[in-house]
């Protein structure tokens, strides 16, 4: 077993993992954040995407030990006390997800894109999300959401939303009733 230190969404975690433990499994099972999803384990679908030191990484293709000491952002780390991140808001407003399984990858990939390119054109958006599969939306609404998020963030108005929506805190689902 290996001792690995990860700073996940600003919080320090020290976990014990096997050498072969994938980062996605460490995040889901050892850190306990299940918002990062497993879709293929072959690096093709992107549902497991997280940010490792600011760069998008398919966490199924990385060993947990190789991320020792890294700062990791997962889907759970995007919303702040003030509410949803503008990228999250844009995805909701634009119907840019249905089942939500690919969302962690789409959101974090978008965050990374907008971090380096505040005004991406469609080609840049496509290039960014080409590594993330979505089977529900056909991608058009995702492109729209990325553009809307870019516009909002450029306007410096991260929560350009009706008051009623901003004040609502996200509702957690009930735990399993077992």
């Amino acid at each position, binding site marked *: 077993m290996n001792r690995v230190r990860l700073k996940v969404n600003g919080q320090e975690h020290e976990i014990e993992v096997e050498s072969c433990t994938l980062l996605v499994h460490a995040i889901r099972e050892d850190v306990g954040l299940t918002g990062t999803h497993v879709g293929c*384990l072959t690096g093709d679908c992107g549902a497991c995407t997280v940010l490792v030191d600011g760069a998008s990484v398919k966490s199924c293709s990385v060993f947990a030990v190789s991320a020792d000491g890294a700062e990791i952002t997962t889907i759970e780390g995007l919303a702040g006390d003030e509410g949803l991140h503008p990228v999250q808001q844009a995805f909701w407003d634009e119907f840019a997800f249905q089942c939500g*399984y690919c969302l962690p990858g789409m*959101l974090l990939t978008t965050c990374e894109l907008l971090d380096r390119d505040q005004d991406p054109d469609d080609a840049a958006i496509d290039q960014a999300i080409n590594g993330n599969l979505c089977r529900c939306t056909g991608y*058009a609404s995702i492109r729209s959401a990325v553009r809307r998020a870019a516009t909002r963030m450029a306007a410096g108005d991260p929560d350009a939303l009706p008051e009623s929506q901003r004040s609502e805190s996200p509702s957690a689902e009930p735990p*399993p009733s077992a």
Partner: protein
Amino acid sequence: MTAVTSADVVVTGPAIGSSARKEGGDTLLTGRGRFVDDYTLPGMRYAAVVRSEVPHARILRVDVREAEQSPGVALVLTGESAAAHAGPIPHFIDPAARGGRYTDVRCLAVGKVVYAGQPVAAVVADTRRQAEAAAELVRVEYEPLPHVLDGDDALAADAPLLYEEWPDNVVLHNHYGTGDVDAALESADLVISDTIRIARSTTAPIEPRGYLASWDRLDETLTVYGSLQNPHQLRWMVANSLGLDETAIHVITARVGGSFGLKMQGHPEETLVCLLSKLTGAPVKWIEDRREAFMAGAREQVHRFTVGAMRDGRIVGIRDQIVANTGAVSAQAGWAMPNMSATTLASGYTVPNVQAELHVVVTNKPPLNAARGFGKDSAHFVMERVVDLVARGLGLDPAEVRRTNFIPAGQFPYRTATGLNIDSGDFPGLLDKALAALDYDALRKRQADLRTEGRHLGVGLAFELTPESADGPGSFVSGFDVTTVRMTMTGKVTVYTGVTTPGGGNDTGIAQIVSDELGVPMSWITVVQGDTERCPGGFGNFSGRGMVTGGGSAALAARDVRAKIATVGARMLAVPVDEVEVAHGYVRAVGDGRTVPIPEVAAAVVTRAFAIANEVEPVLEATRAYKPGNIDHVPDERGRIQPYPTYSSCLHAAVVEVDAETGQTKLLDFVMVHDCGTIINPALVEGQAYGAIVMGIGAGLTERLVHDAQGRLASDRFKSYLLPRAGDLPTIRLEHQVTPSPFTMYGNKGAGEAGVGGAQAAVANAIEDALAPFGVTVREVPLPPPAVLALIDEARTK
């Protein structure tokens, strides 16, 4: 009582028809949606499935000794030992009930295997990795049998038999249609015969299947969490196969990460995981891996057709012989899909003489599983190819041949030659809108100009008719559903419905309906789905039924609750009940605008039951079923039945440029004009349509499940099975047309299935059109670059 003035009432418009944002979207956006793999229970163990590596063989011996000694292993179960505890899995649709053949399907193979990938044994261990490692140590000794992978080959007299109790490899053989096709072909100016092949593709939701079962040894009850479409059917199936009382089983549907038919019930792992939990006394989780998910086929058919048409483009007769390769038999509903391919043939066209003969054939491939389109997609692919071939043969414009043959807008309900009673529509209207959106004449001119430069632009049209909200007598394909609406004494509303959502958003649509019918804001409403203990008995998700049956029953239940709120609210306002309206959380006196908040009325119903609410039954809850019209199972004089209340329709137009040197197809534009009747939530309908279109584009261009000569899956990952990615697609344009159904609650029709077959046909037609200078004929999908190059080569060598 604090009646307030109308000035205090915040009035918004009706919820129905608005693009309300997705219910609970924030839960998913913040990573707190609970999918099946996110559930953990104390003492939980993990299962791995040992699968056959051969396509057809007798099982001589299963040696589990080494696996049992492997670290962390609690149980290794073989087919023989499973059969001692579990009976066959009941069929979702029993082939025998449809005039076909029955065979036992078990959770683990007993005696022999009939496809590579079939579950042969299972391992339960403390961790998933331990279970998978131990599964590798199970030794299975096989005596190979001859196998058959192709549908035509399986029909040969000397073909190996999959099920030895059957005389041949045919699950279902049936004839469809009416009229005198021979005479029609005799009279026709143009007769074309050809063969069309639709390759095996798959649904591939991003979340694979998964189940977590927990047997309680003390209570002798079973709790099952799963990524499911049909929780009540699952409860019945597991009760049957494990010999349990249905009431001892509680099924809870986790959030579903896409399904598209794949997660309808009848999979062997459902019974298996429940049995493993019962035998080990521990909660057992099994999550399918991607390789396993790729085994599920969605469609695979060969059509040998003859069509006759008159010089003006009128199609007078079609004969179609269909061989559908369903793979091995599964208890899931996939085998039944080709039935709808035959029934939907001739689609929205007035073809008077149609004869289809269908053989649904078993082979040593993995089973077909239910898939969006449910066989209707293949009917559209064939029919739309046929229309284009007729247009080409007569030198007519394909748009005009469609117009010539469409059922005229004034002739509904229209009974087709195969018996479908199409409720409503305006198919020429769809075509007009699509051609306008394309600027069709200008596009044809541009095509001609580009051809002079040696460039190959193509335009493909395809019409699609989608029978929705099916009812199959004697099966769990039910045309009705049930919803409970319950209001608390604070006015909050919980809706418990028998329909489930695979992620598309019918919960949002149902909340919109309840909001309007009950007169409360959307934010007061919670929708609960997929829980057999909380929701009324219903049928889940399939056949575009969510809003027709779930929405209809929710409306009826909401109206019952509203009636009580109106009665007591009117008394509180001291006006007759027919002089109040209930909306936006208030009961309002129409005359003077005074209002009373619904929470105060709800509290009065419960706390003043012998006073102001006297004679009103003090329960703010109603459970109602909704049965749409137009379903008719009494055969007509020609033996035709009518299992669908309503028919959505759409017209697709694809514009492609094909590189004749590389075979690469670039999709430049895609338009769909969609008619699902009254729209409850436009954004949700559009989202469903976009997804279905892209699935059809994938099945038309790149998606193909490939098996090697030994029936083993070669395309077992997203690197070898190519889903469309963002960069492959233009921005799809969607337009609506609304012709309400006379047979459903709001005139709404099904949405969500329409798109696959039409898009598949539109891109194929566009490629043929692009390559018209070479004279190619598309006879098979998908059309990846090598297939396109082969088409050009074939045409050149002719």
